[in-house]
């Protein structure tokens, strides 16, 4: 902690104010909101149109060709899957580690997880030649006695992603139940009806809190290995192949690190946006931003290290194809992208080492976006160059994608944005009950008493934190 005196959150903040602030953010969308929604819808329409062409005419409109059977779709898939990891990191890992500074920001990070998974899940479908048969990768009992190929990483992907998606959606939902009860109590009209259903009859009594705590902890424990395995499985799409540049042993940790990295960067972006638009300065405070930025920096260094490991093992290994590919990446047609990736991924994070920059919201906004651009490049540089320069020189080719392909990638950002925009207006993007908990604990932590109560989750230490209105 750079400054012992600075507090993560103002512990004097009134619980009623927390409710008001958060509930206010869900209402009365300003024109800027609607403009953003319109932009997102426009982006989605671009993608839908592009997909229409691709669906009716064929995958060829994505400029895919013999060496480049995969390109941006799979790169985007990996990118979005990666983006989904930080939500889990913030909510589950930090939850287990009792890092309570996560509390004001984990909710939107978790929403981000779910929505980027929903976006990521679209890409394997979009990239299928025969989309209408996509359910064949799922194991189901069929008259024909047919099963998917359980040896294929793509089949694992289908299982892993669907499991991860359902688990993270459940986790998001469970964590929201006390807040939904608050919304229910304050809501009117359709909101009231919606939250009544969603709050699942939450009253905030001891029994409910006890079960809630257990479930939440259980889900957190369940989600962490799942998150790690999902991206390891995604990395298996490449690592299980025989192609140079793909067949890399360090890919699973490399992918997980990259995933956390891009996710953290995305959290910073959304942090800045939410803080600015919803005036969440009281919750999304500078110290929390600093912590997030430091975490990002640490992960960036892990990622850089794993990159170096990969390069070194290729350089000192005997595989000529791998080495040739590495040199080609650094000097060939893809060199600008490759070096941008290195710069954005490994050099730019050093801006996060400066306190003044960490506390400067516009800088953090730009830097975090650039970091994610770098991470997109990283995924692209994993997928495309290998296909361009494989073992067979006759089929070497460099391909930059078509309007259709880029349009769909572009549209995926609109899709993610739209989902997120809907989320912030329908669900509380800051966890009210947990902020209350945080404030409560911070107040108490001055005095030594109740230390046991604080850590013992079976005790109704925060029974009044959520749903107190209902009493």
């Amino acid at each position, binding site marked *: 902690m750079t400054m012992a005196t600075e507090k993560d959150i103002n512990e004097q903040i009134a619980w009623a104010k927390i409710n008001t602030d958060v509930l206010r953010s869900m209402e009365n969308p300003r024109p800027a909101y609607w403009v953003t929604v319109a932009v997102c819808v426009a982006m989605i329409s671009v993608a839908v149109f592009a997909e229409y062409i691709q669906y009716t005419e064929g995958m060829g409109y994505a400029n895919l060709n013999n060496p480049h059977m995969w390109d941006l779709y799979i790169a985007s898939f990996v990118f979005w899957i990666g983006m989904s990891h930080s939500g889990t990191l913030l909510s589950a890992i930090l939850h287990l580690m009792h890092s309570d500074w996560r509390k004001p920001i984990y909710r939107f990070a978790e929403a981000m997880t779910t929505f980027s998974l929903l976006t990521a899940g679209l890409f394997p479908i979009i990239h299928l030649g025969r989309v209408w048969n996509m359910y064949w990768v799922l194991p189901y009992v*069929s*008259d*024909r*006695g047919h099963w998917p190929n359980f040896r294929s990483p793509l089949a694992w992907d289908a299982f892993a992603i669907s499991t991860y998606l359902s688990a993270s959606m459940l986790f998001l939902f469970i964590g929201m139940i006390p807040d939904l009860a608050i919304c229910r109590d304050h809501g009117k009209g359709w909101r009231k009806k919606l939250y009544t259903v969603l709050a699942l009859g939450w009253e905030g009594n001891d029994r409910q809190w006890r079960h809630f705590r257990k479930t939440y902890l259980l889900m957190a424990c369940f989600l962490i290995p799942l998150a790690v395995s999902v991206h390891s499985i995604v990395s298996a799409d490449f690592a299980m192949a025989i192609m140079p540049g793909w067949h890399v042993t360090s890919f699973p940790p490399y992918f997980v690190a990259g995933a956390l990295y891009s996710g953290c960067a995305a959290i910073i972006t959304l942090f800045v946006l939410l803080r600015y638009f919803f005036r969440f300065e009281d919750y999304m405070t500078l110290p929390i931003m600093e912590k997030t930025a430091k975490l990002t920096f640490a992960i960036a260094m892990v990622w850089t290290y794993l990159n170096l490991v990969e390069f070194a093992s290729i350089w000192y290994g005997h595989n000529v194809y791998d080495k040739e590919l590495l040199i080609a990446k650094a000097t060939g047609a893809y060199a600008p992208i490759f070096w941008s990736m290195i710069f954005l991924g490994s050099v730019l994070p050093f801006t996060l080492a400066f306190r003044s920059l960490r506390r400067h919201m516009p800088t953090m906004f730009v830097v975090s976006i650039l970091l994610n651009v770098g991470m997109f490049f990283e995924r692209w540089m994993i997928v495309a160059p290998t296909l361009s320069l494989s073992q067979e020189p006759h089929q070497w080719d460099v391909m930059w994608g078509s309007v259709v392909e880029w349009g769909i990638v572009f549209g995926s950002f609109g899709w993610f944005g739209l989902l997120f925009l809907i989320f912030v207006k329908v669900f509380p993007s800051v966890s009210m009950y947990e902020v209350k908990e945080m404030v409560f604990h911070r107040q108490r932590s001055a005095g030594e008493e109740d230390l046991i109560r604080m850590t013992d989750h079976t005790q109704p230490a925060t029974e009044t934190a959520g749903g107190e209105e209902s009493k």
Partner: protein
Amino acid sequence: MVVSNRSVNPSARRRNFIGPAKMGFVCLLALMVLLVAPTAMAEKYSVTPPTGVYEGKDVKQPIEFPHNTHVKENGINCMYCHTYARRSKVAGIPPTSKCMGCHKVIATDKPRIQKLTKYWEDKTPPPWKKVHDLPDFVHFTHEKHLKTLVFDREFPVENVKEVCAFCHGELENMTVARKVKPLNMGFCVRCHIENKELGAPGDCWKCHK
């Protein structure tokens, strides 16, 4: 498939069954097989017909051909008319000349025969409608099925209609052919699994290529 595979090889058989639950069932079956072995031996190469039913539509043919009259009443063998079945992938619709071989003299007063004669005289074969159709990527072959199920089993050829009925139903009770079996992949695959010892292949490329 290799010829020797046609005999019932218990070890080869076991490979087809899976799971402990089924295993027990298999043991039970094996016991039963042992008990009724003498009878099983007598019945050379038994075949388990495919299962499945289908509600076929009535197809309007240019001439309402009465299969029942030909098969049941007159006892004509299926392969007498569908002569290509044992020599080709397709069973074939009999050429008009074959119909006329009999109907130049038989039942010439019936309206259907007169219709047939008209086609014959116009030198145009009747435009028969396909009843048993398969997708174009399915390469079914009649000749090999007949060889395995009839000729290799030394199944009495005069009773071939019982084998034909596996997929085509009991045509002796129909007039115009109607589809009564689903003829989908499950239908084929079930039979192929059941009759592995007869050499029914499990190789996708046998039918799809």
